[in-house]
């Protein structure tokens, strides 16, 4: 019923003794996530909501066998924390920390790629397989999560953390459940892009459709559109919303010469809408129309 994570996911939280990390650790436990260990160097032997804390990932991994690591450490510590988790062969890293230097992100993604490790983020709010588990602060306290998210067959992937919950809530109210909802992070350099997430959903037999939320900037939507075209149309129905059309009309939003060469195809909201439509995606003009468009195209295939 989900991608990347499920009811069996065993979570390790790096930086678990931090205020924010301790807070979402409790939310995750309340929602039913198996948080098996935490790591904070120097705090080995302590507990956070009964989760044992270790000094190193190696020690935590040997004792508790996690298969996902959530990283919530200060920005300059993220590279080392990620390398430590990759070295311990944890197959999925979710990086919550924002404002990580870009060179560090590029370095950790290079190492992760070579090791076959999947990275979500940085600057992700986390991800959730409704009814099974949630990783990170996504959706907030368990009671709020249950109100916004319902188990089902639509995958959600969003470049905005807050809008992940808004979209899930809209789908839930329209009677459409979700298989997995992923906040991929708002930065320009991230481990799991819209295309990566879409491909995971397309290969998942329990996901019938995918909803994406996009913003101006970057080449992710262009990349997704290229994939749809190369596949001869969307292998799984795709429903998109692109926010920020007004930014197109604002003076001063520009990219350098080199940026334009890298972001071939245009990175404005309107350019993305046109590109995705031409490639066969359903693009909603208004956010409120998103569940209507999904229901019209999918009918009972996506009913919760």
């Amino acid at each position, binding site marked *: 019923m989900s991608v990347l994570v499920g009811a069996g996911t065993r979570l390790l939280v790096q930086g678990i003794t931090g205020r924010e990390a301790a807070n979402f650790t409790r939310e995750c436990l309340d929602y039913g996530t198996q948080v098996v260990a935490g790591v904070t160097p120097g705090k080995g032997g302590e507990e956070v909501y009964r989760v044992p804390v270790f000094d190193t990932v190696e020690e935590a991994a040997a004792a508790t066998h996690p298969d996902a690591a959530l990283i919530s450490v200060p920005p300059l510590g993220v590279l080392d924390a990620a390398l430590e988790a990759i070295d311990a062969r944890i197959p999925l890293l979710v990086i919550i920390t924002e404002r990580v230097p870009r060179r560090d992100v590029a370095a950790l993604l290079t190492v992760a790629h070579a090791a076959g490790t999947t990275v979500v983020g940085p600057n992700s709010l986390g991800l959730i397989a409704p009814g099974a588990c949630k990783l990170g602060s996504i959706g907030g306290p368990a009671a709020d999560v249950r109100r916004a998210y319902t188990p089902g067959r639509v995958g959600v992937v969003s470049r905005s953390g807050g*809008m992940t919950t808004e979209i899930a809530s809209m789908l839930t109210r329209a009677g459409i459940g979700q298989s997995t909802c992923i906040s991929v992070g708002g930065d320009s350099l991230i481990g799991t892009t819209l295309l990566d997430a879409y491909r995971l959903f397309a290969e998942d037999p329990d996901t019938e459709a995918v909803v994406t939320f996009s913003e101006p900037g970057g*080449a992710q939507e262009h990349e997704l559109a290229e994939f749809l075209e190369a596949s001869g149309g969307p292998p799984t129905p795709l429903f998109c919303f692109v926010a920020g059309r007004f930014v197109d009309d604002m003076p001063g939003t520009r990219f350098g010469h*080199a940026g334009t060469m890298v972001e071939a195809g245009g990175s404005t909201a309107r350019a993305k809408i046109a590109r995705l439509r031409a490639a066969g995606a359903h693009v909603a003009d208004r956010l409120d129309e998103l569940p209507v468009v999904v229901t019209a195209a999918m009918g009972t295939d996506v009913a919760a």
Partner: protein
Amino acid sequence: MRLYEWEAKRLLAERGVSVPDGALARSAGEARVVAGRWDATVLKAQVLRGGRMKAGLVQFAEDADGIAEAAASLLVAGAAQVLVEERVPLREERFIGALYDPRRRMPILIYTPRGGIDVEQDSEGSVVRVELDPHGPVEEFRLRAALQRAGVPGSDLRALSAIAAAVARAFLELDATLVEINPLAHVAGRGWMALDAHIELDGDALVRHQDLVERFDLATRGHDGRVPTAVERAAAEIDALDHRGVAGRLVEFDGDVALIIGGGGASLTVFDAIRDAGGQPANYCEVGGNPSVAKVSAFTQLLLERLNPARVAVVMNVVSNTRADLIARGVIEGCLAAGRAPGETIAVFRVPGAWEAESRELLAHYGVRAFGREIGVDAAARMATEATAA
């Protein structure tokens, strides 16, 4: 964070890239001093934006009076400093740059056999891209091999690959997000020279470059070339009142409905929704995290008093971290402080999620229309627009 051209040129010159001889001037008198040093002179306004040639911010002069006059006009046009340089006779123009390629998720070096102000259109199909190792040493031999494959003749190969390596080193050592030399020009008798340079630093990595922060006084520099308005500066001060949450990032517009909207993707969505409903926003802003009542109140008061909107609309996504009741309290206090009745001023309040019931109770007391997730963002935007027009 963008650096000035003169700063970028110094950082590249320190890594072995040739640049024209030049000096900085803060006044016409200072510019005049260099007269006679070269046959021809170019004067370039030091401003933090591109397209200077097309905007008339680059001028040419020959004698002392011409130099003083050009410098004066560039200073009047808004530059605090003018770079006065020798004008070199160039034969060929190239482009070399380094940046992160979001598709490859790697830093890359870009070379094009043509440079100039329209390089991205002119160079289609002839762009050379070489991946750089984000933490390893710069491998000049790879850059040299790529340039050789792209048809760079043996006579230029060593010089151009050395410059490419210097650009790559600058990019990685400085934690830059962009380094560009455009044009990289061939000057008779002097070889390849950087006639213009553009460096952007990663604001999130500045903490490990205190030397640069001090050397170029980066602590006080804005993020783009646009000068914030007085109201925008006031909003930034309010946001800095305490470290709880964000209520700021204000951008002023001309409309009649002030907006208090969620952060990031939510604010983009709501702003579009208001415009789609026929409304004219008076501002863009981002409210996120869990800002204090005092901060939200001061921010609301600022919007009402300084932008004088007919109404204010409070529209957010489903919140989990932000407390709806604290936003409600702040907005009401802000209305009262500005001498405006909340029930007549707040066009719509749509903040679903944490502490929603408490927020509704408070708002009902003041006669404000409050909603949760039973209405969508677009429906809330339509209500805001209708109430503002009424």
